[in-house]
């Protein structure tokens, strides 16, 4: 680099060119200034008042159906944004066998997602399909102006109206129809979200999704089949039959679930169209790293459940660290399980056992068993019971019974024990090495570390309050099962051990 400069200077110094170095530099400077002035975007200054942001050219807005969202605005400048929204009254399926006539923006409930940037001048055309029966309009919460646009967009079927507004505030906003009776229009599904991204756009994430909760009121009860009509009385009483995400019970479940991969950051634009109920939005198994509270600038961190008021919205972000199916719910829990406020996020990828291991062990937890459990002691209690000697078969049978009542809970059906918890009795070197020790353990219990079949165990075995006879039977059973050394433990042996100490 320096060589190049030296080279240039050398050339300049040559008399042949007859250019003065200083003049040349002056001209160079002038040209550079001119070029800089013409090429560089002078619009990079920040504006104190968002109303002053100028717009640069125009673009037709990309409108998407839920749960997808349009491409982020990124670093684009404010533009004149053309939005064409159609209203369609159409029949849809609320859940299996239950049909409902939805009034929609853009053919979906919630309506199409509108993505803008602060400072955009939105030219909004609302068209009412000629087959519709009713007039409609739109109130966008992102609009600063009378009615949020409702006064300027009242439109009869077969007609359209256009109005324009400038997005002054960044945030996530609800839009809905505001034609009388407003509650009915909203209850039939006329709501959606409009995002106004700040300058520079929201920080990029891997996945973004669009979810909106709504409550529905039908003449029939929840689940009653057929075409259901809207019930105004229930709506006034706020007695919802269905509370769902994205317009129907199965909109976000099964094949319609939203997806992500382990390690990705997920951002959910969550709105609540109402008309009446507030949402307690929670994703089972996840914690929201960031919550843009009420869709505004304030960010709360490490949130489990966030409140989204009717006619409001929130942006939640979290990283998915482990695979599985994460259930989205309204944590007013009967709504989730009895009215349909349930969605699914399916995450695929590698397990991370440290974060979540899944099932580590499974077992029967049977705290009592046949005998009364007591902690090990110095063997003060003595029991003397006189019995006659049984046959091996009898002992086995009796022993098995006793085993199943008393020993099974910890040592398991095949004497396999539970790894890291209770030592095995099957093919147990510890057991086979010393019968008397085994008898003593049954009589007195055992604490402390032992090694069985190469594994260390450090647990507590309680003293078993069973008779010597029973001890003999059960130990005979154990020794004669599972590849053990087939000792036939007699009552006498037990007595001896018992009295021996």
């Amino acid at each position, binding site marked *: 680099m320096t060589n190049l400069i030296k080279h240039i200077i050398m050339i300049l110094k040559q008399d042949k060119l007859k*250019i003065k170095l200083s*003049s040349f530099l002056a*001209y160079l400077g*002038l*040209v550079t200034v*001119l070029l800089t002035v*013409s090429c560089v975007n002078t619009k990079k200054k920040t504006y104190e008042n968002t109303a002053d942001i100028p717009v640069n050219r*125009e673009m037709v807005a990309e409108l998407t159906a839920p749960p997808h969202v349009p491409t982020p605005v990124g670093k684009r400048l404010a533009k004149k944004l053309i939005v064409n929204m159609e209203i369609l009254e159409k029949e849809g399926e609320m859940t299996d066998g239950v049909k409902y006539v939805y009034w929609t923006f853009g053919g979906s409930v919630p309506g199409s997602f509108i993505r803008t940037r602060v400072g955009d001048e939105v030219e909004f055309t609302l068209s009412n399909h000629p087959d519709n029966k009713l007039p409609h309009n739109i109130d966008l919460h992102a609009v600063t102006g009378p009615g949020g646009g409702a006064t300027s967009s009242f439109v009869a079927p077969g007609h359209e109206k256009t109005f324009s507004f400038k997005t002054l505030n960044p945030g996530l906003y609800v839009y809905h129809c505001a034609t009388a009776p407003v509650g009915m229009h909203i209850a039939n599904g006329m709501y959606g979200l409009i995002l106004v991204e700040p300058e520079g756009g929201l920080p990029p994430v891997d996945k973004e999704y669009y979810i909106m909760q709504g409550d529905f009121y039908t003449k029939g009860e929840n689940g009653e089949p057929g075409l259901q009509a809207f019930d105004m009385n229930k709506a006034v009483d706020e007695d919802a039959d269905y509370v769902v995400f994205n317009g129907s019970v199965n909109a976000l479940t099964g094949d319609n679930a939203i997806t992500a991969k382990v390690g990705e950051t997920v951002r959910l634009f969550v709105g609540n169209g109402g008309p009446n109920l507030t949402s307690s939005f929670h994703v089972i198994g996840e914690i929201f790293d960031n919550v843009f509270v009420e869709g505004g600038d304030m960010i709360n961190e490490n949130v489990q459940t966030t409140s989204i008021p009717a006619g409001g919205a929130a942006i939640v972000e979290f990283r998915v660290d482990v695979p599985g199916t994460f259930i989205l719910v309204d944590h007013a829990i009967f709504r989730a399980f009895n009215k349909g406020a349930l969605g699914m996020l399916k995450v695929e990828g590698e397990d991370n056992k440290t974060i979540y291991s899944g099932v580590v062990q499974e077992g029967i937890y049977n705290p009592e068993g046949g005998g009364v459990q007591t902690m090990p002691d110095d063997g003060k209690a003595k029991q003397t019971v006189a019995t006659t000697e049984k046959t091996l078969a009898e002992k086995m049978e009796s022993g098995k019974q006793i085993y199943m009542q008393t020993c099974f809970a910890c040592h398991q059906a095949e004497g396999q024990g539970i790894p890291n918890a209770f030592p095995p009795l099957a093919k147990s070197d510890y057991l086979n090495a010393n019968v008397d020790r085994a008898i003593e353990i049954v009589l007195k219990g055992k604490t402390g570390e032992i090694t069985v079949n190469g594994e260390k165990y450090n647990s507590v075995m309680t003293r078993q309050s069973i008779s010597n006879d029973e001890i003999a039977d059960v130990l005979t059973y154990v020794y004669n099962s599972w590849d053990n050394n087939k000792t036939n433990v007699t009552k006498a042996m037990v007595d001896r051990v018992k009295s021996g100490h």
Partner: protein
Amino acid sequence: MKYLKFIVVLLVLTVITACKDNASHKVSEEESVYKCPMQCEGNKTYAKLEACPVCKMDLVMVENQRTKSVADDVISDESIFNLTTTWHTEEGSTVQLKDLKGKTLVMVMIYTTCKAACPRLVADMRNIEAKIPKDKLNDLQFVLVSIDPKNDTPARLKAFAKENFMDGEQWTFLQGTESGVREFANVLAVKYKQISPLDFSHSNIISVFNSGGELVHQQEGLGVDNKETVDSILKLVQ
């Protein structure tokens, strides 16, 4: 060295001239004029059907040519002169709307017993009239149509005109038939409802028609900024 200076000067000149705002031409009185759909240079119109010099979009023809001379028997499809009902003026004469042809019309619907909105509407009309240069007033007719033809007889209208200092040539008051008034209101998209024998509820709209009777501009509301209305009138009386 000389060349460099020359280049720099040329660059500077190009930059300056590119940003210069061209003065807008007057609307041509001839057949076809074209405008840029993006209005790159404001309301400038062009004589040739080509591309906009700024944004390069195709020009489109300007609709609703505003021509001063209207042949007597040619009433356009959109003209209110298509309404054939008869009206009585405050002077007692019987007219049809087409008798108002040839002047730019500024029309509003009121009724004389109105206490709330109408006085303000009347004031709004007066404000608009004040902003028109005196020499242009000959081309203008301010028409106030009564919503209450039963009570607003020509005599009553005349008295009202006098009370409100609107007795000049440029002010006309009309009384029609009930059906004629309803029809007229529907053309203007004015809504009204009688709520008691002397009281009406109505929307407040001031409408501007060109000399051919075609609706050119409407201003809705009371005390609304009348700049656009005045602008549209001035354009018509040029």
